[in-house]
């Protein structure tokens, strides 16, 4: 008898059912606008969190430039929908705009990735900070996109279903990556870069793959963000935005898919729930972060993951080696 909860077809079926629900539910009117806004925010933040986790968690670097990649995706997509093709049908234009937003950010990830070949740790953090400042002041000085005032009148195209869809794509692709040759190479760089090279890991390729994938999904999240708020300006993508994503990563758990989702969910929902506290809400979250760093420095789910998020192959392997352990014990006794 096979345990249906361990079937490899369960996750895709559940995820597809989720898509149907996110398409139908808003149409029934059961979800008011506010709830939809919160759900979309959770999904966007989850994409930002898992993509930053690739660099900060799995690769063990410290990037503070994630908001910069997000800004590039947001502006690139908004230029398409507002300036270039305002009349195009949304159902066609929006996915393309999000994809192009991701690609523009992904391309910008290449130079940062190349700079990471020779620079590590604090020094790379400074480079990502410089990147963020370049993007922000660059956008402030382009009149085409409104300069510091920002870009107005973006159509509201980010539905719950689209946010859900892109969130699933981001988690699926990053899961594939971290459970592949390149993902293990990225983790090896975190553990010991010299040993990684000596064991045949092309650390340059691994770093490029990490940075490009990470910034691609930051761009996707930026595009969704722009078409959710309908307004973007350069200061929406400052160091505070990066910090917000960093908090989610380190709260949820480094190098963890489940932790990325948890971190994004907890932070987003908590910020909403704490609204009545006014300014005091600025105290609760940092206090939580301090406690977490004291008692669980790797975050809620650091370096661990839920089994259903892992590829089927590695699960099968786990049960195989566990059986072997049991057999071993039997022969000993």
């Amino acid at each position, binding site marked *: 008898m096979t345990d249906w909860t361990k079937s490899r077809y369960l996750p895709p079926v559940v995820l597809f059912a989720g898509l149907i629900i996110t398409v139908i539910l808003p149409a029934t009117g059961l979800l008011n606008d506010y709830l939809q806004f919160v759900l979309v925010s959770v999904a966007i933040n989850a994409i930002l969190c898992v993509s930053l986790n690739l660099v900060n968690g799995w690769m063990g670097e410290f990037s503070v430039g994630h908001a910069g990649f997000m800004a590039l995706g947001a502006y690139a997509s908004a230029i398409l929908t507002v300036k270039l093709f305002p009349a195009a049908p949304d159902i066609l234009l929006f996915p393309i705009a999000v994809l192009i937003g991701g690609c523009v950010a992904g391309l910008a990830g290449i130079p940062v990735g190349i700079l990471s070949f020779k620079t590590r740790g604090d020094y790379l953090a400074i480079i990502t900070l410089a990147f963020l400042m370049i993007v922000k002041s660059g956008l402030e000085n382009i009149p085409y996109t409104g300069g510091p005032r920002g870009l107005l009148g973006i159509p509201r195209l980010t539905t719950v279903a689209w946010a859900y869809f892109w969130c699933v794509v981001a988690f699926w692709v990053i899961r594939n*990556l971290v459970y592949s040759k390149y993902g293990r190479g990225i983790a090896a760089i975190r*553990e010991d870069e010299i040993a990684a090279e000596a*064991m045949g890991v092309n650390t340059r390729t691994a770093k490029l793959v990490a940075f490009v994938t990470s910034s691609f999904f930051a761009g996707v999240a930026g595009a969704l963000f722009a078409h959710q708020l309908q307004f973007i300006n350069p200061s929406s993508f400052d160091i505070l935005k990066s910090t917000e994503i960093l908090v989610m990563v380190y709260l949820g758990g480094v190098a963890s898919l489940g932790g990325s989702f948890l971190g994004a969910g907890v932070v987003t929902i908590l910020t909403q729930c704490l609204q009545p506290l006014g300014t005091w809400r600025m105290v609760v979250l940092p206090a939580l972060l301090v406690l977490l760093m004291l008692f669980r420095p790797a975050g809620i789910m650091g370096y661990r993951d839920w089994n259903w998020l892992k590829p089927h192959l590695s699960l099968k392997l786990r049960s195989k*080696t566990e059986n072997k352990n049991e057999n071993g014990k039997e022969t000993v006794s």
Partner: protein
Amino acid sequence: MSLLLETRNLTRQFGGLCAIGDLSLSVNRREILGVIGPNGAGKTTLFNLLTGIYPPSSGEILLDGRSIAGLRPSEIARLGMARTFQNIRLFRQLSVLENVRIAYDSGLLCSPPDALLQTPRSRLRERESIEASLELLELFQLGSLAQDRAGDLSYGAQRRLEIVRALALKPTLLLLDEPAAGMNPSEAMQLTDFLRWVHGKFSLTIVLIEHHMQMVMALCDRIEVLEFGVRIAGGKPDEVKANPRVVKAYLGTEGELP
């Protein structure tokens, strides 16, 4: 006997310090060569030059007749030169299996798009990497520890895992940097038998840096002695043992090596 590895006038300077000076060595195929010398003689620097971690200041390194000076360490590793480290450098947070897979994967043909989109090809390669790595671990009685964190293993098991990880590269040449460091004499003798078995089983050529003299004498076909980055002696274990310069370098005075 054919030549596998050769250095010609290899030199490496750190500022004014000459860590390796004008060193010409050769390693024959299937041989076990010992490299000994007092602390600071440049033995580990030699390994770092051979594996590409430092580029040489001047001189040449030939692996199988091909110049490898200036190549990246990962390229040299894929050409068949694997190594272990003096201070164990495992991927501690990762599982035992993942440690071995990372080395095995370097020979795996799987492009980034394959990996990102999990194409059938990438799934096939994943399966291949898991199966081959598990098989290798089984061979070294580490199969039951495959899912444990490498950092949680005992010291001896970590040393063994580092060698297994190096073997996952399918090397022709294995460089061992003080594999018996921190071991007592009986453990060192066990390691000697183990290395002899590995040498035969995987048809390897081994270059060994070691301070345990008994182990070096028992294991090596030939020994090269370095002092202050310069080769001061070389030859069969017995010849080296009897060489007064070697004794002086080690003991500072006349005497006898164990």
